[in-house]
């Protein structure tokens, strides 16, 4: 039984342009699922649709999102917000902009516990200190009182990770959580996310470009192209040989992490044309079903 279950999700712009094309995706409890695809494929859109933070221009036009067997569409906006706040958390892409510059760090970790989940302030603060230690921050009591601009990018990402785990969510959505960081810090943060995920048994939807990272962290994988799921498989099968030509080309285009300087084969034009044709055929089919 998966904790997150997305079925046939359609998201489109006001002018009808589709951003997600009947996306189905599951994340089982405690599972790490990687979501890969080129820039603009709609990876972030999936996370945003789940979290209820789609841009104003984009609307869900079909399908369902179930959380623990409960269809989010059936909830009132307020109930939905609070359900998400209690059970799902986001580790954002850019730690430099994801903390409020005019508030101290401590309250930004404890606020969800106090305001949404009704914890006592003292309990929430004790919990925050504990979490900051867990993400290997020295002098956590000092960091709690600091303003974001006083801390490095790596520190801020650790704080955001601590904050994401604060309410013991069942699912964490990490949207390229390391791309904004230095290469050396990237490795540490990635290790930390995996460590925290395993210790807390949290399910993780991990959005990334980097198939090298996927092999290290995920058990299953979804490949997205132009808002459509191209391939959905477990990691072993994928690295043994993806079934879709686009996935194979994507894998070939990734430098092996044992040989990072090895030659890169960009996704060949013929493969792009084939997958574009597939999307066009899918859209034509959709038109048919709408008319029928």
């Amino acid at each position: 039984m998966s904790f997150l279950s997305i079925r046939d999700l359609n998201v489109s712009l006001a002018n009808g342009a589709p951003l997600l094309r009947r996306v189905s995706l599951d994340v089982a409890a405690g599972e790490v699922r990687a979501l890969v695809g080129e820039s603009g494929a709609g990876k972030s859109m999936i996370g945003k649709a789940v979290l209820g933070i789609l841009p104003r221009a984009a609307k869900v036009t079909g399908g369902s999102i179930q959380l623990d067997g409960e269809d989010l569409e059936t909830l009132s906006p307020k109930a939905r917000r609070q359900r998400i706040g209690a059970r799902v958390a986001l580790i954002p892409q850019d730690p430099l902009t994801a903390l409020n510059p005019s508030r101290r760090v401590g309250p930004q970790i404890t606020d969800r516990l106090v305001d949404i989940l009704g914890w006592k302030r003292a309990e929430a603060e004790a919990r925050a200190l504990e979490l900051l230690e867990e993400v290997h921050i020295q002098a956590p009591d000092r960091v709690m009182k600091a303003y974001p601009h006083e801390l490095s990018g790596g520190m801020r990402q650790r704080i955001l990770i601590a904050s994401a785990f604060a309410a013991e969510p069942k699912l964490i959505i990490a949207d390229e959580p390391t791309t904004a960081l230095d290469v050396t810090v990237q490795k540490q943060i990635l290790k930390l996310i995996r460590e925290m995920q395993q210790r807390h048994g949290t399910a993780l939807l991990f959005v990334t470009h980097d198939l090298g990272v996927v092999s290290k962290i995920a058990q299953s994988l979804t490949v997205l192209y132009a808002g459509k799921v191209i391939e959905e498989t477990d990691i072993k099968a994928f690295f043994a040989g993806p079934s879709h030509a686009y996935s194979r080309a994507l894998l070939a285009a990734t430098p092996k992490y044992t040989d990072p300087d090895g030659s890169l084969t960009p996704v060949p034009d013929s493969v792009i044309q084939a997958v574009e044709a597939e999307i066009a055929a899918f859209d034509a089919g959709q038109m048919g079903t709408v008319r029928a």
Partner: protein
Amino acid sequence: MQIARALITRLITTLVTLLGAAVIVFVVIRVVPGNPIAMMLPPGATDADIDRLKALYGLDKSILEQFWIWIGNVVQGDFGMSITLRQPVYDLVIGRLPATLELSILALLIAVFLGGAAALTATLYRGTKIEGGIDVAGGVALSLPDFLWGLALILVLGVLWPLFHISGRVSPSLGFEFGSNFYLFEALARLQFNVVGDLIAHMLMPALALAIPLAAIILQLLKQSLKECMHDDYITLARTKGYSESSIILRDALPNAILPTLTLIGVQFTFLIGGTVIIERLFSYEGLGNMAIDAVINRDLPLIQGIVLVFALLFTLVNLVVDMTYAALNPRLRHA
């Protein structure tokens, strides 16, 4: 160390500003046509009479000499005598200042409340007809200057529906004995709510006239800053935590959006104080501005100088308060 240096710099700029204002007004009112002596003497006065009066007020000396004498006295706390009212300028100005201060501050509070509430509401309902309506109201508020709003208010709330008093500061029929010139403040402190009501009924229209254009300016800038903040990542993150749109606007966006508005309010508040001159006249409100107009009409040189100095001092004080608030609200400055 840094704070001490900042304070000294501040003190010096304040003194230079005041001196500049003093020089300018001193020279200007002596260069423009019309002189106080002519106003004071009956028709048919002889040249000897004129010379005698000029000597009495020191007007026979050169402007530079007059300035030195005046500044020398001011430094010792002596602002001279009003020519027309024959009372010490200091007493006159201090007596009227509270009325103007109360009016300006009431107007400022109204402007901040109206402008702030409108900006927050428009942000909450951005992209809807409510935002459109608020924008239109803001545009209308900005299309007229304060004194025309004063006239419009007199017409509507003073004549058509006479809800408020159109002139004066307090009803004499109340027979209330004030111990200070801060009428409103005193009545509030003494819990005399019928007096407070009467004072407000007098002050509301002039205060509104001053507040309406400022409220619109606050609305426009604050709304703009708020809307920009609403795209920031920490706002999105707060949404995922389960917060409602209104609490996100108040708690996360407002503190980050407010600084430019604060600076603007500081500058605009000095304009508002300047606006009291005409507004007080329009509503026969017994304040400093009203007295300033009489002083100018009568060429009461010492009184004009005294009033201008007080206004200049007020402006620098307002700027000081704004800078301090700015530093207190911005963590990045606080730790720098």
